[in-house]
């Protein structure tokens, strides 16, 4: 049996498969389907300092090989998280990561300080790339100086593993990643969703209440893969790759492109067991190719 362990800074992952924030609820929704603790890690849904209602319905539109969403970070805020969600997720024997969101740097800091107090949360994912909120969000991730600043300030208050999640809606993603790495990120994760739009030709109306939303799913995989490859070459910290991963082959491709671990997003909606299936598929791939340590294939694209 191949050794599937990988390491993201101080996090030890039993396998490279994590689930993407906003697509895995708080994990507990999957208890009926899988043993969540068998995953390398889970990313909880985006959390903010205060309660957020999110955007109006409709928030979703199906697209060719993908979907647009405009959830807008609906969540009950960090107090609720600490009281009602944390007790349920700390039980998992896997890395539980909180996806941290803010409209201002102060909010990012205050939220991170709260999460820092939770013993069984060993990492945060700093989301500076959400396309679905008016203030903050993507604005941080598409501008180098802003991305640098938020990373730097949050770093000051957080000593555990800090993953920074970046926006793909940029000209040169490697440039921003480098800036973020420089400010102390322990890992970067990409991609978040691409800003897109859908229209109903019959009613002439946008299909999302917010007009634009975030595109995810296999449609974006070729672009995501390219970005992961570019970023992995540009920076030294481990990269967590995602964007349209639907099966183990996709996951292997991201690892060959340079990802140390992957996150499964939209695929969870279509098959609630998919993340575990991907773990098994990676194991089979390793066996078939006589790979003893899966970490040996990271960045091993043959050119």
């Amino acid at each position, binding site marked *: 049996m191949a050794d599937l362990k990988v390491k993201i800074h101080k996090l030890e992952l039993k396998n490279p498969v994590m689930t993407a924030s906003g697509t895995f609820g708080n994990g507990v929704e999957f208890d*009926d389907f899988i043993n969540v603790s068998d995953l390398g890690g889970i990313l909880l849904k985006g959390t903010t300092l205060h309660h957020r209602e*999110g955007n109006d*319905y409709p928030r*979703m*539109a199906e697209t060719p090989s993908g979907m647009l969403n405009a*959830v807008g970070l*609906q969540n009950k805020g960090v107090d609720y998280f600490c009281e009602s969600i944390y007790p349920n997720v700390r039980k998992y024997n896997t890395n539980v990561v909180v996806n941290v969101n803010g409209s201002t740097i102060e909010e990012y800091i205050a939220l991170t300080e709260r999460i820092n107090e939770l013993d069984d949360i060993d990492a945060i994912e700093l989301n500076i790339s959400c396309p679905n909120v008016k203030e903050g969000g993507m604005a941080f991730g598409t501008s180098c100086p802003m991305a640098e600043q938020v990373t730097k300030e949050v770093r000051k208050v957080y000593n555990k593993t800090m993953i920074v999640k970046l926006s793909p809606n940029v000209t040169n993603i490697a440039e921003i990643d480098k800036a973020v790495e420089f400010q102390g990120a322990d890992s970067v994760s990409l991609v978040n969703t691409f800003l897109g739009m859908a229209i109903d030709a019959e009613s002439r109306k946008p299909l999302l209440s917010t007009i634009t939303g975030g595109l995810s799913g296999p449609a974006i995989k070729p672009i995501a893969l390219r970005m992961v490859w570019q970023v992995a070459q540009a920076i030294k910290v481990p990269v967590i790759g995602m964007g349209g991963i639907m099966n183990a082959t996709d996951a292997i491709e991201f690892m060959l492109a340079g990802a140390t671990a992957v996150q499964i997003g939209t695929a969870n*909606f279509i098959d*609630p067991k998919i993340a575990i299936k991907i773990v098994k598929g990676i194991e089979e791939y390793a066996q078939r190719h006589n790979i003893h340590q899966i970490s040996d294939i990271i960045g091993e694209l043959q050119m």
Partner: protein
Amino acid sequence: MNKKVCDLILTKKTQLNHDNYLLELQSKEPLSAINPGQFVNVLIKDASSTFLRRPFSVHEVIYATNSIVILVKTVGEGTYKLVEAELGDKIDVVFPLGNGFSLPKKDEKILLIGGGVGIAPMMQMGRESKEARAEVHFLLGARSAKDQILIDEFKQHGSVHLTTNDGSMGVEGFVIHHPIFSKKEGFDRIYCCGPDPMMHAVAKKAKALSIDCEVSLENMMACGFGVCLCCVTKTNEGNKCVCTDGPVFNIKDLEWQI
């Protein structure tokens, strides 16, 4: 009542009219209890434009054969593909999903309103309500006589009242125009599933008559089990997921302008 994702076998397929089909899906394992008003989420294979699953209400549960029956109206690629499935085919389904209707109490007089394919959940609801000894009335609205389906089947669980937009069968007009609403002895509860405008009209009527009313919403869904937060509707307690907190809501909890 754990959710599961598994292959069910298509054991029976009945075409009811030009665009409605009954599909009977059998589970190898015994079914745990399913509430009337719950739904299933079906993976459509081999269709180029259906990326996400497609939700369908549970039309009937046949515990004796571990079967779930769904009523499918063909409206797009997903539903067309689904009704092309052949007997013996495996259908990949996540179920049971959602909350379901609250069952009436003994001797209560209830009105189950279905508009179009919104009649789907009312069959199982009618059966279980009758079993609970409620007095069951169905009010089924359709565009035209040719769209009125399953009338005999509904009659087994209660009395059936019909409306059609063109008057070709039953009362002419929408369901709310049916004289049943003006009868003196009123209903204890109304349950409704159908197009949004119809549910709004029914809710308004129910509110005016002070009758307890539940509606089953059909918001667009990505996951169906509460993780994507795409299917929300506004309630007194903020946005709630139609797939987990619903699809059935009491109208008093919804922020409808009625």
